[in-house]
């Protein structure tokens, strides 16, 4: 099997999807001839033509508006937002339109064919406009799905599922792993199911929940905890909306403790939803408060990026605190 990085896996998924279904069309700023600022859309235009892989003018609200219309017509647009930090001009088109299209029309019209791809997250010295993790905003929006891969294998399989899903999907790509995460990726066409968590590592003392680039961070923390005799179970959510409550709660019922890690600011982040559900579903099994190791409630800083990040050390500390509660 070929070793690919996460970017290459995304690119391969796009090639696969476009080849299999001519209704799949890729659009966004600089995605055409240039192949996108990260090169995720490399060679799509030369392979499938300018009509099916095209640059758009620089207007995110238009990209999503156009993509909504295109999807409503029956196509399967894969719209790129160059950085997740720049998705907000399209917020209305996503929240009021994409997510409500099917509901408001009683299912007569849908944009189920739409996929939105966007790189997100920090750790690249990007400051607050090239580092944001806005998944929690979209997790509060019934009508779309939110998916985040952590490695090339997932990236290809989940992206293919997202493109083919009958629901609009926001597919968020952890950009600091674009080249850093390398792994085996089958060349064939395969799909991974949406809405299912991935049990990364079994353990008995505490359940660690994360997604995207932070999975590797909690893995490091778990490693360190292990050397202190603590056994961690690690769950990669993969899908943020809907999320796999069952897998998480079953694990917490087993371990009795839970920690959630994400880069986005603590307050109102998606960890709060998980904590709220877990405390309710696992109430009688919890041996310590559910811990959230997250970004600070500040804009994502530049000079203090290292300090801001919910890193392995902070996670380790929180694990030990929970275990010794």
């Amino acid at each position: 099997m070929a070793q690919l990085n996460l970017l290459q896996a995304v690119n391969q998924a796009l090639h696969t999807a476009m080849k299999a279904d001519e209704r799949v069309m890729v659009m966004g700023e600089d995605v055409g001839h240039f192949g996108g600022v990260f090169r995720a859309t490399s060679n799509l235009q030369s392979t499938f033509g300018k009509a099916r892989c095209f640059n758009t003018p620089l207007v995110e609200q238009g990209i999503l508006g156009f993509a909504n219309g295109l999807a409503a017509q029956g196509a399967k647009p894969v719209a790129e937002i160059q950085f997740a930090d720049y998705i907000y001009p399209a917020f209305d088109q996503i929240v009021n339109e994409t997510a409500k299209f099917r509901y408001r029309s009683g299912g007569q019209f849908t944009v189920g064919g739409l996929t939105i791809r966007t790189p997100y997250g920090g750790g690249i010295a990007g400051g607050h406009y090239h580092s944001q993790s806005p998944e929690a905003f979209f997790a509060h929006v019934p009508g779309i799905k939110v998916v985040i891969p952590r490695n090339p294998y997932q990236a290809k399989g989940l992206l293919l599922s997202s493109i083919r899903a009958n629901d609009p999907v926001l597919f968020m790509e952890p950009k600091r792993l674009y080249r850093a995460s390398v792994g085996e990726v089958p060349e064939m066409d395969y799909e991974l199911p949406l809405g299912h968590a991935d049990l990364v590592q079994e353990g008995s003392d505490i359940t660690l929940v994360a997604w995207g680039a932070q999975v590797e961070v909690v893995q490091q923390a778990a490693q360190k905890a292990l050397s202190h005799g603590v056994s961690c179970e690690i769950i990669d959510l993969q899908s943020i909306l809907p999320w796999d409550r069952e897998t998480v709660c079953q694990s917490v019922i087993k371990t009795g403790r839970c920690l959630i890690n994400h880069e986005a600011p603590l307050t109102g982040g998606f960890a709060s939803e998980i904590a709220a559900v877990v405390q309710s579903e696992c109430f009688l099994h919890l041996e310590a408060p559910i811990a959230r190791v997250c970004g600070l409630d500040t804009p994502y800083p530049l000079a203090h990026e290292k300090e801001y990040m919910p890193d392995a050390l902070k996670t380790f500390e929180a694990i030990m605190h929970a275990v010794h509660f």
Partner: protein
Amino acid sequence: MSDVTQSTAKKTPDPVSRRDHMAQITATQAVNLIDKQSAPMPMLQLLNSDGNILNKQYIDAWDKDTALKLFYAMHFTRILDERMIGAQRQGRISFYLACTGEEAAIVGATAGVEMRDMIMTQYREQGALAYRGYTATQFMNQMFSNVLDPNKGRQMPIHYGDKALNFMTVSSPLGTQIPQAAGYAYGQKMSGEDAITLCFFGEGAASEGDFHAGLNMAAVLECPCIFLCRNNGYAISTPADEQFKGDGIASRGIGYGVHTIRVDGNDALAMYVAAKEARAYALKHNCPVLIEAMTYRLAAHSTSDDPSGYRSRDEEAVWREKDPIMRMHRYLQQVGWLHEKALDGFITQTRSDLLAALKFSEKQATAPLSEIVTDVYAEVEPHLQDQLDALQMHVNKYPEAYPNTSQQTAADKQGEGVQ
């Protein structure tokens, strides 16, 4: 000096390897601020207020059937408006929004395109549905949000939508349909359809960023669609001169490189001809066309509004004189196509149809409770099924508190659910 012209007005860029974003631009040495007067935007008029054709070239622009179908749809729309404003006053529906005064702009344009063309609207374009054959009962089912509405009663009155008639379900956020129309038209082109998208919106909505996005993208991405702005002078209370300082919406077409035509929106023939030519042009050249229909919102903004606070009766009276239905009536008289008695019959019939439909629709049940969670996703996701189950138990426990759906729930269980 020759050097200047050469370097800045190069007319033949190397097609292969060299782009020149200034290839078409000439130089000047005078400091002149260019203003809006530099691009006059006259308005197409084909019928005068007496109903006479002003340009004989368009004497055969349509046939009698089309003209009468259009005229009847205008009447239907007017009667529907009157009936529903009444119904709202009687407390039978919560909200209504009338098309009154703008029937020619909407029905005229709809008649000018084909049934296979997609229509996306703002909310004041019920005339388009009327022309396409939406029935009295269909209108009423939507407005009473009952189980027979294919939109399943999920939105406020006037948010019509009908797949069979190629009429996209209305969405309240203004302007969102404009870039969507561009995308829809792109999809039509890509799938080889011989069809365009006709997108209506108000001059107020044209201030939204989505307008800018939609027009620019349609031009750049070569989308066969018609953007039809109803400039009716008001956005709720805000007059056009507090909405923009340019020469209406038509003058913006130039900036986008979109072919544009301004039309007297109270002249059904001009609207019909403009839409027809715009459609042909859009299809032939794979490009958008912008139409600005100059008209007037004779009605209040909606039944929640009272315009007397922000405009004069005087002003309204001027426009009542320009009633598009009156003008069309005179035209049909002039050409001898009007059968007054048939018209009276149609009006009487429409009134009674609407009343009967209203009485029928208001009695229909609400969609079953289970529909509260369908269509959020393609399938009912597990968390929504859980929420529905809990809700259903709750409703069963307190049926009297949820009279609309508790009965249905019971009925559903007996297999007697309304269809």
